[in-house]
């Protein structure tokens, strides 16, 4: 262990620049709000040296929005660095001769950097949206003795609110740091530690939302279920450790492929870890805390859970299923389980969303359904029918889907966040007549819904088509070519094919509730005619409104045209970097 960090040098520092940025962001968040004009008199002289910590705070450090600005800047920088590092020449230039690894715990490659992009962009969007959501006041003073109890109370509350700003943004950054490190983890232990760092932060973020009564309850429920599931996962990991003696993924993969039959220790260990990760992606039947957590937390945080947190679960699943336990030929042991979970997840999610009346719950269940689609694609990899290029295509589709989800799923949550800012957003009626109140936002929301449903030419269609294409291309060839009727062909085809049918049917089913959200915005009479607060939320150029519109535009641009192609190229080379390692 001691040698692990001994060779940390400039190169590694550059490779880890996004994480270092986030880490220094956390330090800055702790320090900067405390900066003041305190001075220290050098003893026996009259010279006063400013010590900065303590005293009366400066104007800029007492600005309660400061943590938000710092977080935005830090996340943007981290995003920017990750994008720079995505360039393979930059990566290889700073990599050590032995490969892109750092110690033997982390590996910095295009795959992990694509996910850093994903995590930082999702958190950046959430952080931008939070500016208007968290109450904060300028010029709050400490209560004086002369104040009446009410005034004193309100002053204390305002101080607490301002203080909470720092806590919230530190938690956002630790979530980002945990996720980003987790994507690079090359060792199951490291992976789990980072996963827990991100998860624990996100439990608190869910409970942070005290605007509604259920916020605390949601956080508590999410925390309890999450920690139980983590315990299950850690138990599974300990079994794997018992079996193999270490948790290095390459070593585990080698032992797994050398294993004859299935060692019970290894099999149970992997099964328990799948449970832990399936909770993270929100797959049925481990998804039951998901709708409560989403609807209890503030919308930006729900958006982070639905995109970044889900992506984190999928990184873990991809590493565990495709890298560690995928046999070189034949069907993987987990294939049937994942396929079953996938079908149950997407059907359950869609049916529950159909019967729900709370837009946040609908989005939460739709997020469950999307996890099902992606798991179905993973099951197609496990079927053993996929050759190397098909595997790469399916993984590309999954990662691409996770990336564009940030645009349209989080975008939809941001729209709800605008409604929440005026104390609404928990009932279908709150969306009524949004087109009258704010046409641009309603159109954006409609684009998000269509993209979630998978309507061409939006990016949601492109990714879904690629996933279906992957499943069909591994399975359709197995049907008897001589079959004359659909029935005889269907009897002969590999069962994997039905996953594609399940996705198509579920997508058709999901259209109903997505269109319902779209239609109530245009057809129903709004409860109030006042235009939506187009809050000049951030004291910098991008208001939340324009951020939402940018998301909608990108949803289209990543669905068709050169931008979609370059993103696909990026993802596909990232996936190749994962598979070749």
């Amino acid at each position, binding site marked *: 262990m001691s040698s692990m960090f001994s060779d940390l040098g400039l190169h590694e520092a550059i490779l880890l620049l996004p994480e270092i940025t986030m880490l220094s962001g956390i330090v800055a968040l702790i320090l900067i709000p405390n900066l003041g004009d305190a001075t220290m008199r050098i003893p026996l002289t009259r010279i006063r040296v400013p010590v900065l910590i303590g005293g009366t705070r400066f104007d800029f450090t007492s600005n309660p929005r400061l943590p938000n600005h710092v977080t935005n800047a830090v996340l943007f920088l981290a995003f920017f660095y990750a994008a720079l590092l995505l360039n393979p020449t930059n990566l290889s230039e700073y990599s050590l001769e032995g490969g892109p690894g750092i110690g033997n715990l982390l590996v910095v490659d295009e795959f992990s950097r694509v996910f850093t992009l994903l995590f930082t962009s999702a958190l950046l969007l959430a952080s931008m949206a939070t500016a208007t959501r968290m109450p904060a006041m300028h010029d709050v003073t400490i209560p004086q003795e002369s104040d009446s109890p009410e005034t004193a109370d309100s002053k204390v509350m305002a101080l607490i609110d301002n203080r909470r700003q720092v806590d919230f943004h530190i938690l956002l950054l630790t979530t980002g740091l945990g996720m980003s490190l987790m994507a690079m983890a090359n060792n199951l232990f490291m992976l789990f530690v980072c996963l827990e760092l991100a998860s624990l932060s996100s439990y608190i973020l869910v409970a942070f939302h005290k605007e509604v009564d259920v916020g605390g309850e949601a956080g508590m429920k999410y925390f309890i279920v999450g920690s139980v599931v983590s315990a299950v996962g850690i138990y599974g990991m300990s079994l794997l450790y018992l079996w193999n003696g270490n948790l290095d993924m390459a070593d585990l993969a080698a032992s797994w492929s050398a294993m004859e039959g299935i060692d019970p220790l290894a099999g149970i260990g992997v099964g328990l870890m799948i449970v832990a990760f399936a909770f993270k992606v929100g797959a049925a039947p481990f998804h039951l805390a998901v709708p409560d957590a989403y609807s209890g937390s503030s919308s930006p945080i729900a958006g982070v859970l639905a995109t970044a947190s889900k992506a984190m679960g999928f990184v873990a699943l991809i590493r565990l299923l495709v890298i560690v336990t995928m046999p070189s030929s034949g069907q993987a042991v987990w294939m049937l389980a994942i396929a079953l979970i996938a079908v149950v997840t997407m059907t359950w999610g869609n049916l529950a969303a159909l019967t729900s009346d709370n837009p946040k719950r609908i989005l939460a269940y739709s997020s469950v359904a999307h996890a099902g689609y992606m798991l179905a694609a993973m099951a197609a990899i496990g079927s053993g029918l996929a050759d190397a290029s098909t595997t790469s*295509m399916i993984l*590309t589709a999954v990662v691409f889907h996770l990336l564009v989800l940030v645009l349209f799923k989080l975008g939809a949550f941001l729209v709800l966040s605008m409604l929440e800012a005026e104390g609404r957003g928990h009932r279908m009626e709150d969306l009524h007549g949004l087109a009258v109140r704010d046409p641009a936002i309603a159109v954006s929301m409609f684009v998000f819904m269509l993209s979630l449903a998978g*309507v*061409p*030419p939006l990016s949601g269609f*492109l990714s879904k*088509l*690629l996933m*279906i*294409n992957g499943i*069909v*291309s591994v399975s*359709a060839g197995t049907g008897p*070519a001589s*079959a*004359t*009727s*659909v*029935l005889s*062909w269907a009897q002969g085809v590999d069962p994997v094919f039905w996953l594609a049918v399940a996705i*198509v049917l579920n997508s*058709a089913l999901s*259209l109903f509730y997505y*269109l319902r959200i779209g*239609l109530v915005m*245009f*057809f129903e009479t709004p409860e109030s005619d006042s235009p939506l607060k187009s809050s000049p939320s951030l004291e910098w150029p991008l208001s939340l409104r324009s951020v939402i519109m940018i998301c909608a535009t990108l949803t289209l641009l990543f669905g*068709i*045209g050169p931008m*979609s*192609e370059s993103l*696909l190229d990026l993802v*596909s080379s990232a996936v190749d970097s994962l598979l070749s390692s």
Partner: protein
Amino acid sequence: MIDDPLSVITLVPLFMGLALIVLPRFLPKSSAEGLMRVSRNISMGIALAVAAITTLLFLGEWGSIDWTDITQGGYVLQNEAVNLIPSIGVTWKVGADALSFPMIWLTAILIPISMLVEWDAKRGHLFFPLLLIMEGALLGVFVALDLFVFYVFWEMTLIPMFLLILLWGGEDRRYAAMKFFIYTFTASVFMLIGILVMYFHTEAIAGLGSLSGHHFDLVAMTAQENLIPSEGLRHFVWILLLIGFATKMPSVPVHTWLPDAHVQAPTAGSMLLAGVMLKMGAYGFLRISVTVFPESTLVFVPLLIVLGMVSLVYGAWVCMGQTNLKRMVAYSSVSHMGLIFLGIATMQPLGIAGALFMMFAHGIISPLLFAVAGAFKHHYHTLEIGSMRGIAHHSPWLAAHMMLGWMASLGLPLLAGFVAEITILIAFWMTYGWLVLLPALTLIITAVYYLNSMQRTIFESNDPEKGILPESLQGEEPSDLSWHENAGMLTLAALTALFGIMPFIFWDMMSDWSSGFVVDTMIEAMQAQEWFP
């Protein structure tokens, strides 16, 4: 000259329309207001330019194309395919042939005419750009040779039409717009699934579908021998496509959105809906279902005949009971669309050419009918047929256009509708013999309802001085057509007469295309199935 006129006439209206809607929101107030004031004129200018380009293309002044020499599978004015999403094989590929060109010309002509008819529309800074977007989307459907692009444009036509009904419609516009949207959107989801099954059966061609190994190129799909080998799956896909197309056409039993949408839509919306949007269904059916799956089409000919017959007879029958002018015209559209199915079901060059001509002829007659109905609503404030008598006395121009439109619709010789009906009936007789009596007798029902309402509204008058005016006028004297309404209707009337007297303008290319289509595509399938009617 421009190398790629089809892309230009599709994309320029689309983006100019979008720009005219979006730009004023970003400009400073004074220039935004200036732009909004002229956006009507800009829209009209672009629409006229598109119409001029299309007409020049047809006359051969531009690119000198011999339109009669296009056979099925051969396209003119094709562009160099531009990759849109190479990883899944989507390209921007456009082209025209005798099937699509009359529709392209029709769209290009109808847009300026419908703008003219509603020249005084409220909120014109939104209305006219929306019509431009509509034009781009409709042209996109007809020029696209890539199924992905085709589907995108197909869905895109929904949005401007939906907004036209929702923002400028009558009292029940919300219900009508919602019904319109849900019906056509749901149906096109079936179509999308069908297209996806076709997609998964395509073989990779170089440079397309680098990631998926498939492509959406319609020309290559048509050329691919036996695209879907399994017969059952082929039939299944054919049915999925039919659901999408038949709902758009619309055919009984999925026609119920049409009367509601028509009654509530503004005049220009109705004109485009009946004139071009309904034809999208027939066009897609011929372009994709019949062309790619001739064997399945032969198998389902009885279904086509039933759908066509039921639409024809039921539409006409329901017309007789209608008291609402627009509703009556809407059901007559359902009836005429039934004839298109019958024409295709003959599997004769004559019948298919008749169906093509029907698409075109109905495309100029029904806008005239809806323009008349809209003007009627505008000047008499009602659409009830029984509520007034003798409008020939009060509004002679309106009465004249109404007469001409109804005569054309019931198939008076020397007007465009007659050519289409008579050829379809002849071809039907050649194939199915005396079964032709049913559609032929239905034409009598058509005559009954048109002549009946004609007598009741235009001529009959209890008081020769005044006629009976509807109560909705509240005693005011009705006015006749305004100049712009009259100009638009005169153009349509002139076209109706022109194509009635000289049908060969488009007929030649249509019949050549149909013969080539039957010889190249159908004969082989007919022989394989020993299909002889």
